[in-house]
């Protein structure tokens, strides 16, 4: 199992490193910008007051003052950039784990050896999840050295909370992608399906925030549960978010591994 685990990570090490470095560089840029933004905080707050409340809520921005680094990072980094990076990384790792191998026919190389399908699926799953854990930890806790360099105060507990929420979000997205990767024999189909689903979820979340009579649609969206502003600004993590992400991850993993065990892997 560890042969499959380490080989999978080794083959994707550059890709994973690039994602981590890009995330750290983005965080660094925002922390470096923060002192000047903080000085302009009063002016910006006045400008933000003119924004419609429902619009701010739709984009997960409910508390907009740049007097703290957490507010600034929540709006600039964790609202869009970080989840997008986590989604791209998760989809890519998952689609390469099964669907791409079936598409290229290389899965025969592995399954011609004494390796069970569950072991193959499990090792690739753990490898992908490990990469996401690494990405989440580095992209979040890089705040510690970078904030020290730029003499910016921060609340570590809030970053721990957003890291937990981010990891749960990334885990659920990755598990959904792994499930579809076990169904399809084409990497492109996995990316398009998961991407399409997440775009739909994003739209549902915005529509639910803008229209009171469609409010319940928010419960069908990952982005409703991924309340990064609450996590980073208020250090708040709802039980509902935790359980929804865990449930999605567990169910998708179970269905994916069952399907991979049943399916034809040669095309």
């Amino acid at each position, binding site marked *: 199992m560890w042969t499959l685990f380490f080989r999978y990570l080794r083959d994707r090490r550059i890709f994973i490193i690039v994602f981590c470095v890009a995330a750290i560089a983005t965080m660094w840029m925002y922390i470096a910008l923060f002192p000047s933004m903080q000085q302009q905080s009063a002016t910006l707050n006045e400008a933000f007051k003119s924004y419609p409340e429902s619009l701010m809520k739709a984009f997960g921005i409910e508390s907009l003052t740049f007097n703290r680094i957490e507010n600034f990072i929540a709006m600039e980094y964790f609202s869009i950039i970080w989840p997008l990076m986590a989604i791209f990384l998760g989809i890519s790792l998952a689609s390469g784990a099964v669907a791409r191998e079936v598409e290229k026919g290389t*899965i*025969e*190389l592995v*399954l011609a050896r004494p*390796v069970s399908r569950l072991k193959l699926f499990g090792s690739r799953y753990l490898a992908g999840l490990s990469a996401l854990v690494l990405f989440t930890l580095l992209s979040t806790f890089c705040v510690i050295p970078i904030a020290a360099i730029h003499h910016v105060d921060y609340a570590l507990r809030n970053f721990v909370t957003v890291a937990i929420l981010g990891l749960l979000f990334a885990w659920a997205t990755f598990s959904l992608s792994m499930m579809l990767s076990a169904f399809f024999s084409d990497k492109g189909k996995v990316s398009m399906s998961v991407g399409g689903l997440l775009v739909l979820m994003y739209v549902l979340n915005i529509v639910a925030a803008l229209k009171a009579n469609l409010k319940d649609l928010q419960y069908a969206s990952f982005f409703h549960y991924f309340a990064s502003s609450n996590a980073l600004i208020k250090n708040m993590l709802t039980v509902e978010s935790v359980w929804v992400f865990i449930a999605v991850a567990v169910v998708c993993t179970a269905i994916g591994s069952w399907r991979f065990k049943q399916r034809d*892997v*040669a095309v």
Partner: protein
Amino acid sequence: MQAIVVENLTKHFGKTKAVDGVSFSVEQGEVFGFLGPNGAGKTTTIRCMMDFIRPSGGTVSLLGLDAQKDSVEVKKRVGYLSGYVRLYGSWTGDDHIRFAQRLSGSHDRAQELANRLNFNPKVKAKALSTGNRQKLGLILSLLNDPDLIIMDEPTNALDPLLQNAVYGLLDEAKKRGATIFMSSHNLNEVDRICTNVCVIKQGKVVATDAINDLKKLRLFRIHAHVAGSISPAIFTSLGAEVLEHRNDHITMKIKGDVTPIIKALSGYKLHDLEVEHATLEDIFLEYYQA
């Protein structure tokens, strides 16, 4: 003991019956040829045997174990070569070999096999020619001295010199008691290596027999050179298939009793007459085209 038992195997892809009730068995130590035209269901059968695809019905037993339920145990003792060797483009030959060794826990025959097949394992797979990819596939399939070797077109893309090297490796495997199951389009190769064959067509077995018994089938090729001209019509009416006709020459294929043909030919003044058993190729074409 039987190394392979395939019973009533079926595999449907939607409405298409790729394999339709195939049954055959292979004794331990036997070299078994699996033949058929393109699209006959050979690769699908092999993939069912390797548990890459799941049968719609029937059973496959390899080395006394269920190919599906005991897949992991079976593969500890099976070497497999795909008809089209798929490799990880960014890995070298050595990477593939080490990966296979770690998964199979096999002892190191890689260097010896690489030397015999004149293969350089330091090159990345994406830079390998089709022939070299085939060589790497062969090394991976023979790495752990398997008890059962399943090969889909083993000498595909290899030059005659390397084909002989492969035959040598298969001969050695046979001598140590391994069972070899191979599909092939190369009938000379089948004639040379295999002891028994199974012919499959449109997903169904049309013949299973020893090579020598197949050759004894009453299928003849007759070539006659006569004085004057010879008419093919009389021979066609007697059931012969005229392969070639040129005024005083005729070549025909006869299935069954040749006596009426010989009697008809006795009416001509013969310069030359040849009656020979049909080649293996003729026999298989007979099955393929039936």
